[in-house]
């Protein structure tokens, strides 16, 4: 899908499709000089049609194609042979859309020092679409943590924390569960507390992330949410308690079971308590 010009150009005018074919050849031949003038025109000429509806393997990466637009796929083609210097140069001089396309494309490139630089850029950025393009709807964080120089657990944790800060669900970072650690849980829990004090909240699945590496307070949070009035918060609490898997917490789950109105959540409670 992502490597095929005909599939990327399903509803694209023949002239624009020919332009992309010629452009891809020029990009391979001439490098970043050619790409710099091709990249800005991609949304206009190739469009923003969604590319798919499920998660797919792209090389060694996994991506959620619901986040990919035709112009992102075309950018990936243009950047196929670009080296680190070209990627960083194009990012530096890119406008909003160019950066979005470049970052989404970069999430599927082999890990390199440029990956670390771009992760640093989106960590600093206040532009949420850029953060999402590189970090969400793919497994880059999980793949990169500890696998490339300069990007360890602390750096990955800060990016996960930023997702929570931006109000994004954990599940949009594929494989994020592998990044669980107590320091991250403490930071997420502090953020959740701060938000709640202000009458706001973090995404419900943040609780499960904390439960994978619990810190003092995590179990109490999950138990409290077991009685929450919102279905999604109770669902998150049940998922978190399953991860905590503590025998001493089972009485609370059993106590909730007969009063749980949602059939789906009741089934989950039954499974956990063995009733």
């Amino acid at each position, binding site marked *: 899908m992502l490597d095929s010009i005909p599939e990327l150009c399903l509803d694209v005018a023949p002239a624009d499709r020919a332009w992309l074919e010629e452009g891809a050849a020029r990009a391979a031949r001439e490098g970043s000089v050619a790409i*710099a*003038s091709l990249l*800005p*025109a991609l*949304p*206009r000429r190739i*469009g*923003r*049609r*969604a590319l798919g509806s499920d998660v797919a393997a792209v090389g060694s990466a996994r991506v959620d194609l*619901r*986040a990919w*637009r035709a112009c992102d796929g075309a950018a990936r083609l243009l950047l196929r042979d670009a080296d680190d210097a070209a990627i960083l140069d194009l990012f530096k*001089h890119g*406008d*909003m*859309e*160019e*950066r979005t396309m470049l970052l989404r494309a970069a999430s599927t490139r082999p890990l390199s020092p440029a990956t670390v630089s771009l992760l640093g850029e989106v960590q600093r950025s*206040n*532009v*949420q*679409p850029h953060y999402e393009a590189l970090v969400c709807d793919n497994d880059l964080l999980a793949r990169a943590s500890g696998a490339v120089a300069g990007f360890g657990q602390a750096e990955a944790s800060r990016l996960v924390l930023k997702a929570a*800060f*931006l*109000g*994004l*669900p954990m599940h*949009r970072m594929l494989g994020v569960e592998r990044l669980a650690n107590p320091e991250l849980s403490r930071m997420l829990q502090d953020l959740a507390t701060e938000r709640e004090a202000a009458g*706001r909240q973090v*995404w419900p699945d943040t609780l499960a992330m904390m439960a994978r590496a619990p810190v003092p307070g995590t179990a109490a949070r999950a138990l409290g949410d077991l009685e929450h009035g919102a279905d999604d918060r109770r669902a998150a609490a049940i998922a978190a308690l399953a991860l905590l898997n503590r025998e001493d917490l089972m009485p609370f789950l059993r106590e909730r079971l007969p009063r749980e109105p949602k059939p789906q959540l009741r089934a989950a409670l039954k499974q956990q308590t063995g009733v």
Partner: protein
Amino acid sequence: MRIFEPHVHMFSRVTDDYERMAEAGVRAVLEPAFWLGQARTTVGTFVDYFDTLLGWERHRSEQFGVWHFCTMGLNPREANDPRVNDAVMEVLPRYLEKDSVLGVGEIGLDDQTKTEEKYYAAQVELARKHDLPILVHTPHRDKKRGFERCIDILKDLAFPMARVLLDHGNEETIKITRDLGCVSGFSIYPHTKMDCERMVKIVLEHGVENMVINSAADWGVSDPLRVPKTVALLRRANVAETTIEKLVWHNPIDFFAQSGRLKKSDLEHAPGKSVLETFEGNSVLRGQDPARFETARE
């Protein structure tokens, strides 16, 4: 009334301005690159400023439901400065390829020096090369003569007048530009340049053909609501709605659409809405709650 504001420096405005402009009908703004109130001494500060116009400012604007476009150029005041002029000319071509860059500007004359003329002419050639219209800043001092000089240079270069917006006009300059085939811009200010009442008189006398109005608001005493305020006065003067719409919507869009990068139909909906709902069928939120998305923004 939908408004395309064809000259405003949002870089120097606060979010309250965006909110009030959107409420008053401003659907899109064009932000010409200009000087920043004090001299820049290295090209790097230009590059960062240009990047802001393409990136952060655009993002900021769209958060408030206002489309953001820009023109890029070396302004006449800093064209005189050898610390930056050639270096800026070197980086400009790359920016002129960007999707939200709809023209070359503000270029033109300020003190009317030979150096200004040299960089003005060079940028007119850049516009020709990149197939873009130009937004011309005309001098605030010795305006009539400066206006004529700006036009003479364009004639010498045989640059098509239909692709020229001569800005900061007044009652005197409209007499010069009326029959040229270029677009005349009027910058409506609280105290200087042109005011709302005088603008109504100009419209009543000359009509709105090849005419646009803007606030040119920046970090000085200025008002980003001057276009909607002028619209209100035009209505009070019984100017037809279709005429007002031509002045504040069709004229500026038709002019900048000559870049090939702007389509009127793309401005039918405000930005932001598409982010919260779906974008061409692709739900950006994917199951997230739009209300939560709103509150998550900080």
